[in-house]
């Protein structure tokens, strides 16, 4: 899976900046997408392209249980978020709803990948290749249940 990186070099990107509370009443996915990342980067919806990835630091998606957060990112075109760690509800919402892939990375990928770099994510090998810089990094493998739910295409398609 190839795409370009939008990098936010900071920890604790919370759901209030991913999709501000005033939009929680909105359940139109396309409209939510126009407000994605508004609390941090008001131009996000103009620059994001279909198939892009977000790269960020620790505890991405902390805060509320709002599924609006992965929905807004996913309907903006984001296919995966790469982060040093994820807050638990954002992580399971992303996977159970099959909105995007939450990929845990190490410091080498966080530091090595720059905004705008093109990368290739190979889940079968747990490997990330930076096509712009010709570097490779490992990603943390998905746990057993997460891998199975992703393969099934979300919780409703998963047969325990």
């Amino acid at each position, binding site marked *: 899976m190839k795409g370009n990186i939008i990098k936010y070099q900071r920890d*604790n990107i*919370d759901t*209030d*900046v991913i999709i*501000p*509370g*005033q939009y*929680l*009443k*909105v*359940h139109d996915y396309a409209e939510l997408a126009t407000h994605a990342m508004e*609390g*941090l980067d008001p131009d996000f919806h103009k620059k994001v392209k279909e198939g892009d990835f977000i790269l960020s630091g*620790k*505890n991405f998606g*902390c*805060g*509320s*249980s*709002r*599924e*609006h957060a992965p929905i807004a990112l996913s309907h903006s075109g984001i296919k995966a978020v790469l982060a040093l*760690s994820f*807050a*638990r*509800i954002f992580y*399971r*919402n992303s996977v*159970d*709803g099959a909105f995007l892939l939450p990929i845990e990375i190490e410091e080498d990928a966080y530091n090595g990948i720059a905004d705008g770099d093109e990368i290739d994510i190979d889940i079968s090998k747990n490997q990330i290749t930076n096509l712009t810089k010709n570097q490779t990094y490992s990603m943390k493998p998905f*746990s*057993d*249940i997460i891998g199975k739910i992703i393969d099934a295409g*979300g*919780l*409703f398609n998963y047969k*325990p």
Partner: protein
Amino acid sequence: MNIVEKILARASGKSSVSPDDVIFANVDKVMVHDVSGPGVLKVFDKLKNKGVDVSKLWDPTKVWVAEDHFVPSAEKISAENIVKLSNFTKNYGIEKHFKYGMGQYGICHTLSHEEALVMPGDVYVGGDSHTNTTGALGAFACGLGHTDIAYVLLNGKIWFKVPETDFFKLNGKLPEHVMAKDLILKIIGDIGTDGGNYRTMQFGGTGIDAMSVESRLTLCNMTTEAGAKNGIVEADQKVVDYLKSRGASNAQIFKGDNDAQYANVYEYEASEMEPLVAKPFSPENISVVREAPSVELDKSYIGSCTGAKYEDLEAAAKILKGHKVKIRTEILPASISIYKRAMENGLLSIFLDSGVTVGPPTCGACCGAHMGVLAKDEICISTTNRNFPGRMGHVDSQTYLSSPMVAAASAITGKITDPRDLQ
């Protein structure tokens, strides 16, 4: 097993479970509100389009519905969401729907304890991150998103990875003017906003035994801000009496085994605790009130599931009595039952005499929804739970999180004020 392991073993039909086991737990209670409810219905629509039968819930008697985030309806989209909720409960035969303007209603987490909707030992999931609050009744209480709640509503179960448990022990009784809010802010300052991620935060010790059920609810409420899967206090006689006084005759004490294991134990001495604030823009950005920045406040907000329970209002009233507020101050009791007690016991008169605006129960400005949101550059002291950029309104507003006593004292002076320093 500790209490969470015991609850999850029982709920998954296993004799025992250990941290990292993945289980499907049968759920005892489910909550949705005016934000997560319409979100769940959207998931139902998607499922219906794929040919999945969504015509019946697994058990409508185990589901209850709150109206809290955008009520009384803020504008037409939120009004439509309330109509959707009414249709949802009517179509699926859900009887426990707490409607505003029709008697008891309020913030979902507050209703969970005020209405004794959750019992010790239950697996309780809600479509809201602060579902953790209700763990103070000795339940496994955990917040989930729309897809997961939709799954529970149709199947009655959901997957969990059994969490590791950290035990937070409070030795001794908190001093006067120091509240449970101060303790949980202290803990979040120590472990950070991801210090509890994927984990259980359990509270115990002589200080917790001495605490009211409402104070324990404040502790569990903000385990969410440390990223925890759930917060919990083992149910004791106090919890049983609390629930029985609210009509739950079947409430029983439920505890972990004597040889319960914890990943980490943190100890706190109550006598060393002081009033604290969390400075912008993170709940982990802690300062002792007496060392807080000397900013000119624009507003004091006493509301939310965290800071507008009856005892929170009582604490604020004690401070406000006989004083006038110097800045805009809003108090929004978290439920109608609390509002009524505040009226009967004279708290509302104290608030109104001090110049405070008393509003209806709502999540309101806590999440930047309505009823007092902040303008650019405005600075607020608030009894709520989060202070991320834009949380209570404009992205360039600022929120200091505090206890109700500190918010009330600060309302009187217009500066961040330790209630012990009030003249």
